[in-house]
């Protein structure tokens, strides 16, 4: 199987082709113009990860929501599931930047942390 990927390791945006056999083993990576492109394409084919930034509802704050992010990258296919958990959660004001809002989301080992302050009303 062939997978076509656009490398985002730098602004060049090289088109990279990855050849994968039936067992999911990577046979070759072509089209990249540097080593970083090779590494990016391999991760992207085996375990693509993304960082997630969104908001959490706040009770009793001067704002309705406070922005938050995943403290590290999480598997790409779990992003929407994480959103579901975050959208059903809430925090009590005051919230401070860096507060852990959800610990170890979906067993990924990654916390959801506040990225701004939300003082109490």
């Amino acid at each position, binding site marked *: 199987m062939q997978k076509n990927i656009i490398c985002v390791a730098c*602004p060049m945006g090289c088109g990279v082709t990855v050849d994968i056999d039936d067992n999911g083993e990577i046979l070759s990576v072509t089209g990249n*113009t540097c080593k970083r492109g090779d590494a990016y394409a391999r991760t992207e084919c085996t375990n693509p990860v993304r960082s997630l930034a969104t908001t959490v509802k706040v009770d009793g704050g001067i*704002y309705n929501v406070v922005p938050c*992010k995943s403290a590290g990258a999480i598997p790409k296919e779990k992003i929407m599931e994480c959103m579901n958990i975050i*959208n059903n959660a809430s925090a009590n004001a005051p919230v401070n930047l860096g507060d852990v809002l959800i610990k170890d989301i979906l067993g990924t080992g990654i916390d959801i942390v506040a990225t*701004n*302050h939300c003082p109490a009303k």
Partner: protein
Amino acid sequence: MLNYDIVVIGGGPAGMAAALKAKECGVDSILILERAETLGGILEQCIHTGFGLHYFGEELSGPEYADRFISLVNEKNIEYKTDTMALEITENNVVYAVNKTDGLLEIQAKAIILAMGCRERPRGALNIAGTRASGVMSAGTAQKYVNIDGYMPGKKVVILGSGDIGLIMARRMTLEGAEVKCVCELMPYSSGLTRNIVQCLDDFNIPLYLSCTVIDIHGKGRIEGVTIADVDENRRPIKGTERYIECDTLLLSVGLIPENELTRAVGIQLDPITSGAVVDEYRETSHKGVFACGNVLHVHDLVDYVTLESQTAGEGAANYVLGKSSEAEYIETKGVNGVRYIVPQKVNIKNEGDIKLYFRVGQVYKNARIVVKYNGEEIISRKRPRLAPGEMEDVLIKNDMLKNFAQGGKIEISVEV
């Protein structure tokens, strides 16, 4: 009348970095005026990550990047007034501003730093036909609704313009459960970062239609749909390619315009390409003691560059106030053959440091060369594997080179393929 050495108009990343630098350079009497409720500017609603990679060497969200500067402004006891709108600056560097508690403020400044940022190009600037239905808004407006107010402005979304804000909002609306039908881009290429096209569109299977635009808006009370069409090389819609897309929201991400009403009203010279002031290497405008930095000067793609530029302006303003400005003999800079503009537009050759020239190209180039000429003679040539309009470039003019220049000379930067 109040008196300050430096009045900074705008408390976003540009204003805060400029004020902090001026303070560090020895000016204590500084006032920042901010029209929003808090310092931080547009970063407060840019909750996605990717800020600070150059300046801090780590990937921060917008509010986190802003918070580092807000904390420093508080720590250094720099005065600021929020909820305060600057109305006018005069030829004698008096600033008029207004807020609910002080009423009208009249502030005499020795130096003024303009850091008002930019605003989004609105629907009215595009001449899209159709009804005046609700649900048509700029991508930044939707970003504020979702990220600050916690309010979703719609469920079925079409986005016109593939600038970074449009791409970021395509992902944001999708994450919050909306269906983003497509992103239409008038040009044959996206002006957004490749990274954003991959992570904001491809990840969620959102189609990007290049050379395509919205030609009609339907719906009476609320927008019900749009007609889109492909465009030819002259950006004219092609007959027969029209198709209807049902939607309840149309987001516009079609460019940013520096917000220079105050600048224009006092008669400061503006650059027609950047829509910002014409400045020297310390970002001093044509009006003595008035400096400009950040997106009000020219639209930046990275806040990290805004911070660096604003520190330069802050240093310049401090030098001016402290009477340390050196005598001036200017040469002019000019972008030619593929280079749309250069900031600064003029350089004082008596300056004792190196000078960085920032510029933008007009189209995408691969494996091109950047050539710098002084009075027609090549002085620097640099290879660039890729150049794009969305990515600001820079080139350093060393001081020993500067010393060989003479007043009235001209530096030109061009792209050679």
